[in-house]
């Protein structure tokens, strides 16, 4: 199958979970629930092979490239899918096929607990695996309450920690999108150390997929806003006929075009193969635009919807909240700007 055909195929299969026209009833129903997502749907997604996207074919995976992964993520973003696919994929990517069939089948959910600080991509901090067992804290574990186990990362590798194991406690706080972050505290948990597969690349891929997801979020919020501009009337005219709104809408379109081009370019480059510094620079480039554009579109979407956009019952708010939740995940724009400059020092063309 050609690359393009693969991408079309995965996009089509994703659309089965995200009906066009955006039926967001399911999304609303899951908000602020305990797991924050639907394990049954998660399993269906796993059945599509979406947890083995990046596993090589020789290891039984789909062996798809980042372009296919990003195409999928963008569709999921357009539908605000709350199932933590990108996070689960990160765990699989770090562990490889050895993660086990139950995980790939979606019947056992393993989520990465990699973050300790407020920002950045440092997966080493927070826990230590000393003699007395694994101790410390990982924070901001997305959709943690739905996990059966966590892939806890540290300087020396990772540990697979069962959610119910001795010495493990989890405290959750809601996120704007109706999901949550877990704070995972570990006090002398016994767990075996596992080697992680190319963790820097794995985190970069998650950041890129998150950028693609944000692209889907922002594009859909923009389309909703255009629809509203076409029909909402004030002063006896559709507000989309007012030039200042037209020009601002054009500016959003411009940012979205830049973001889409960036996602495609970076995914293509990663698939073609680049060195580590260039890979990180490209991913940072894209994540900056993704975070900034999603937030820009979100705030203009609220503004252009007027008062109704500030109500929770209007769907545009769901997109705003999703942008707020994901903009800083896998590194904020500020972090990625600094990393871009560090990874690729300026040299005039």
């Amino acid at each position: 199958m050609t690359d393009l055909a693969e991408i079309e195929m995965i996009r089509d299969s994703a659309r089965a979970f995200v009906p066009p026209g955006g039926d967001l009833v399911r999304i609303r129903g899951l908000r602020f629930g305990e797991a924050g997502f639907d394990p049954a749907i998660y399993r269906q997604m796993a059945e599509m092979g979406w947890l083995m996207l990046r596993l090589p074919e020789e290891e039984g995976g789909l062996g798809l490239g980042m372009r296919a992964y990003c195409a999928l993520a963008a569709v999921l973003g357009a539908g605000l899918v709350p199932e933590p696919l990108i996070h689960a994929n990160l765990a699989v990517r770090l562990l490889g096929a050895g993660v086990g069939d139950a995980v790939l089948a979606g019947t056992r959910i393993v989520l990465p607990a990699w973050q300790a600080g407020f920002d950045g991509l440092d997966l080493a901090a927070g826990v230590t695996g000393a003699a007395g067992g694994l101790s410390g804290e990982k924070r901001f574990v997305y959709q943690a309450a739905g996990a059966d186990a966590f892939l806890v990362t540290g300087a020396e590798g990772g540990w697979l920690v069962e959610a119910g194991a001795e010495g493990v406690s989890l405290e959750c706080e809601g996120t704007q999108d109706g999901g949550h972050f877990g704070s995972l505290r570990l006090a002398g948990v016994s767990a075996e150390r596992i080697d992680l597969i190319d963790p820097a690349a794995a985190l970069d891929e998650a950041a890129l997929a998150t950028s693609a997801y944000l692209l889907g979020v922002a594009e859909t919020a923009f389309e909703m806003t255009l629809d509203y501009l076409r029909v909402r009337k004030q002063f006896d005219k559709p507000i989309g006929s007012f030039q200042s709104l037209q020009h601002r809408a054009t500016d959003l379109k411009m940012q979205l075009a830049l973001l889409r081009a960036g996602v495609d370019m970076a995914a293509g480059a990663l698939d073609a193969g680049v060195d580590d510094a260039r890979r990180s620079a490209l991913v940072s480039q894209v994540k900056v635009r993704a975070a900034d554009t999603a937030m820009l579109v979100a705030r203009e979407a609220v503004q252009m919807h007027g008062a109704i956009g500030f109500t929770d019952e209007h769907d545009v708010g769901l997109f705003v909240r999703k942008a707020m939740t994901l903009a800083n995940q896998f590194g904020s724009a500020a972090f990625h700007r600094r990393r871009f400059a560090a990874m690729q020092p300026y040299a005039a063309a």
Partner: protein
Amino acid sequence: MSLHSRNDIYAVMSDEEFRAQARAFIEANYPDIPRFSQKRLHFSQSKPWYMALARKGWVAPAWPVEHGGMGLSATKQLIWIEENERFGAARINDIGPVMLGPLLIQFGTDAQKAQFLPKILSGEHIWAQGYSEPNAGSDLAAVRTEAVLDGDEWVINGQKTWATLGNDANWIFILARTDKSVKKQAGISFILVPMDLPGVTVRPIENLEMHDEFCEVFFDDVRVPRENLVGAVNQGWTMAKALLGHERVFIGAPRLSSSALARLDLLARKVGVADDPAFQDRFTRLRLDVADLTALFETYIEKLRHGEAIGADVSIMKIFQSELYQRISEEMMAIGGATAALLEPFEHDPRLHAAGTYLMARPTTIFGGSNEVLRNVLARMVLDLPA
């Protein structure tokens, strides 16, 4: 009247004396209710504070002393606001004292003043505002809620929306169409409506902060006495505009921005970016915007103090302050890292709540005249640009 004579004292008090007294009063009397809440508290929660202010005679800082207000100068009003901000005192249900009171004092009959003003001061009447409608937002003159005179009663039908804390209120004032045959601004009247009447239905609307701050209010053959009309029939548009009055200055006050700036500073320290020179550069830009807005605000306060007319250019401040407030909140989101995604304040400190500030800042560019409409008006009225 003891209340009267007691209140007269603010006129002769120095600004600094007044500030000290205000601060001491707040610290001594603020009840055991949340401080620094970004969400508006409901009356059920904030009532003890309203009552404490009522007992002190401090519900209506701007009203003249003879009507039971404090008769504060513009500067002292500002001090009062600042001291409340500094302490993090909850904002009371203030549509009665801030909006309706001054309007009744200017346009109401003696009977209306006698009937309504004391009950605002005592907290017996909590007012809501019934201006906007689903199809009359930016274009307020398009209101369709109708009031028809039937004998000695107005019969009201229609729907209002975005009534702030409408579910706390027992009275609402509305703009209603009383003449459909004239051009749209000319056929509107201003009417007072008790909310416990048959036919009045309130539906709270949850906002993005998951807070039922705004309400829709439906009127279905609601009947109120003819005397509930304020001003003359069809004079409602004039009053709606007059209602702005001082408000047009205070809505541009830098306080939302300066308090957001303090939150940004705290958050920057918390997440460890306060010393990053790039952050400092951006922070200084925001600080300077707040500082210059403050300078501009003070020129208007000075005009109020000297009784000078406030021109249409005053809405420059509302535009700048609301957009500045938003920019500060966006910087909070940008630096907040993972905490920016949280639904509730990080570590339960309401001042560390990037998402809360971000969301609370959104409607400030929409309500009180959307910034787009205000820019249209400025272009025509102040810059004299052609239609």
